[in-house]
């Protein structure tokens, strides 16, 4: 177990290093941040001063060396745009994104699991067909369009929910959270639902497939023959087995939701990390881009690890040591 963990951590560091190098070269290839940040009427002297102030006058490899040296001391650089430590900027906005991602995941589970279970147990009923057709829509409709439609219907026409923003926040552990206040929850509902549509569909399909497959297994037939109640057969014997793929996929999806909720965040003006990263990319704010992507890599690795651990809890046959990667 320890060997396994150490190996995972080393791998993580390697990926983070590679990531930072790729981003450095990538941003350099796209363009010059000063050209984008500088006021159009700045003269040449001012332009040269800005290039120097941001440390962009050094050759790229030196810039990278400076970055690495500082990164080893825990300093990922200051944002060109905000003049604040990149890491601080990201952490400030992390709670907003986290609660959005978890909200979406909860929606996916509480809506997706029951519907998928129903569709799996009664595959031929009309309601099941509606669920499955609906899940195709959930896969295929573009998020930004659905988001705007949600706003038009629930905020503009019905006026039930606020259209954008985070609303009132409560404080927990020194951070601001929307889910602690009623107003915040009302603001959270639409973006979380919008972000979860794809996931709901995914969970429905996975659950349905799992149920249909498992229901034909010998042990289920045996359990029924033993005279167990249908509820016990479904919720203990079937459910536990179909959860393995669902946990894996939902876990991985959580990572990509945290990292790439960009579209939903900008449509709903949700002040999270996704909005920060897209704004930063638009102005080539390299320190923020690098720090963000490094952190996302870490989050992905951590989630993968947790998924693997959960896996071994749900399925005792899985041995972590035996898994190479």
């Amino acid at each position, binding site marked *: 177990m320890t060997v396994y963990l150490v190996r995972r951590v080393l791998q993580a560091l390697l990926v983070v290093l590679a990531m930072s190098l790729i981003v450095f070269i990538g941003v350099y290839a*796209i*363009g*010059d*941040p*000063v*050209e*984008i*940040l*500088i*006021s*159009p*009427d*700045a*003269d*040449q*002297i*001012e*332009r040269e*001063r*800005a290039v120097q*102030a*941001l440390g962009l006058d050094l050759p790229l490899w030196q810039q990278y060396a400076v970055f690495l040296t500082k990164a080893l001391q825990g300093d990922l650089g*200051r944002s*060109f*745009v*905000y*003049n*604040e430590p990149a890491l601080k*900027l990201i952490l*400030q*906005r992390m709670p907003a994104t986290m609660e959005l991602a978890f909200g979406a995941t909860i929606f996916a589970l509480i809506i997706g699991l029951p519907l998928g279970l129903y569709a799996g147990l009664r595959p031929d009923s009309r309601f099941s067909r509606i669920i499955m057709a609906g899940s195709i829509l959930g896969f295929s409709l573009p998020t930004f369009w659905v*988001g*705007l439609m949600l*706003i*038009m219907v629930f*905020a*503009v026409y019905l*006026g039930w929910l*606020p*259209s*954008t*923003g*985070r609303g009132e926040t409560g404080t927990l552990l020194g951070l601001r959270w929307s889910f602690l206040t009623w107003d915040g929850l009302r603001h959270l509902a639409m973006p979380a639902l919008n972000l979860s549509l794809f996931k709901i569909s995914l969970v429905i399909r996975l659950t349905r497939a799992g149920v249909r497959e498992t229901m034909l297994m010998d042990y289920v037939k045996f359990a029924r023959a033993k005279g167990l109640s249908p509820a016990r057969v479904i919720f203990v014997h079937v459910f536990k087995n179909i959860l393995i793929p669902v946990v894996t996929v939902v876990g991985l999806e959580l990572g990509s939701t945290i990292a790439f909720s960009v579209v939903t965040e*900008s*449509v*709903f*003006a949700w*002040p999270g990390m996704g*909005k*920060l990263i897209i*704004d930063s*990319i*638009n*102005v*080539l704010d390299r320190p923020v881009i690098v720090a963000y992507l490094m952190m996302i890599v870490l989050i992905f690795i951590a989630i993968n690890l947790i998924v693997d651990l959960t896996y071994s809890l749900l399925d005792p046959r899985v041995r972590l040591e035996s898994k190479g990667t």
Partner: protein
Amino acid sequence: MTGKLRKLASAATTAFIGLSAQGAVAQSVTMAVAAPVTSLDPHYHQLSPNNAVADTIFDKLVNTDATSTSIPGLALSWRAVEPNVWEFKLRPNVRFHNGNPFTAEDVAFTLQRLPNVPNSPSSFAAYSRPIQSMEIGDPLTIRFRTAAPHPLMPLDMTNVRILDRETHQNATTEDFNAGRAAIGTGPYRVVSHRSGDRIEFERNDNYWGDRAPFQRVIYRMITNDAARTAALLAGDVEFIDQVPTSDLAKLRQDNRIALSEVVGLRLIFLGLDHLRQANENSPFITDNDGRPLGRNPLQDVRVRRALSIAIDRKAIVDRVMEGAAIPAGQFLPEGVYTHVSGVTTPAFDPDAARRLLAEAGYPQGFRIQLNGPNDRYVNDARIIQAVGQMWTRIGVRTTVEAQPWTTFVGRAGRADFSAHLIGWGSNPDGSHPLRNVLATQTRERGWGSSNRGRYSNLRVDGLLDQSLVELDEPKRVQLVIEAQRIAAEDVAVIPLHIQTNIWGMRRHLAHDARNDELTRAQDVRPAAR
């Protein structure tokens, strides 16, 4: 009948609720702007959204009104007492939000801070650079000594927000962003700031000028155009800026919404390649078979004029811009004091354009690529598509390439293109576009830093040079106008249109539309009833 009655009753109720709601909200207003404010430090990043917010919190020696005309701010009057010395008489009895008095010491401190803001990606240092020394006569008089006569000094001062020496001695950009140091003399003071999300303001009851209309202002940032409009329609915000042109028709018909509009100072134009000489190849121009031409047709003023009159500017304004612009033939719109009278919008005349091309030796035309950004200016990519079709009609077969600003602007700056679309937001003095866009690129003088076509005309340079040291204002304005006239007649660039700035608001609000595009909290007030 009953239906009608019910409608009437409900309308009456709505009106009643509306009225009482207005009574309740008259003390506060929620605004949403499109561009994120990146810092509350007024000297950190020269950027319109930051400047708009800084104008709410701070004052300048010289303020500007909605038409960008200079008006007394923290200075009551100013004049050049000697050719090289400007004297500013300061406003008495002005206090900062924390109660500190405003004096000449604060002005001196502010100007010293400009070049010393660490890590600034675009500083205000250029405005203090001409000043060699400062003399404080009495607490309300300050003199700036310059190396040469500097007639633009008052105009420069419209960009410098004044800080308090005592409060801001060691204030960092982070202190400003946290709100701790965001203390000025302006009409509203900062209550809280959540970066990229919102700023909350409270009225400064001790403001020296007109009392701000609202007790509280919530200034939100909603970058997505459709979401911003939706928030206005849903009533979550009462005021938005940068109304998307695609929503204009709908909003004009909505009787809950009012719009405020004004012709701005941002010209959208085409820059042309003047860098390659007449006998050189321009990078994106070939003959009709795709072979190098061996010469740069854009060096011939007849070709430039042909390309200009081949464009139906009115069609672009009506169809692409949905009316949110006016066709233009020069940098500044009519009504601005450095507008060149007599230089009209080039009339659309494809036949004359073909004749000019033939005269210049291109009866069969040539091929060109027109480059432009696709995420910078209103409808930018669609404008170059329209221009491309119009050029193709006179025989200049045009391909169009739009790309993100991040990749576009660097290449444009290196003069990589033969023709490119770009915009210029002026201050109302014609010396601004002259110096930055039209003057020959010269590092020592700081000229032509945005001259991406590398236009160079000694007569324009000479007149600009004279104007920059001419203290007699009417004479200076004449020089600036003359230089612009020469550049326009020489088709240095091809002007397309000047954008209209449009704000949208709920009916209970009114707004003073500014031609400099700034969305300032103090310009929003309850509508007169």
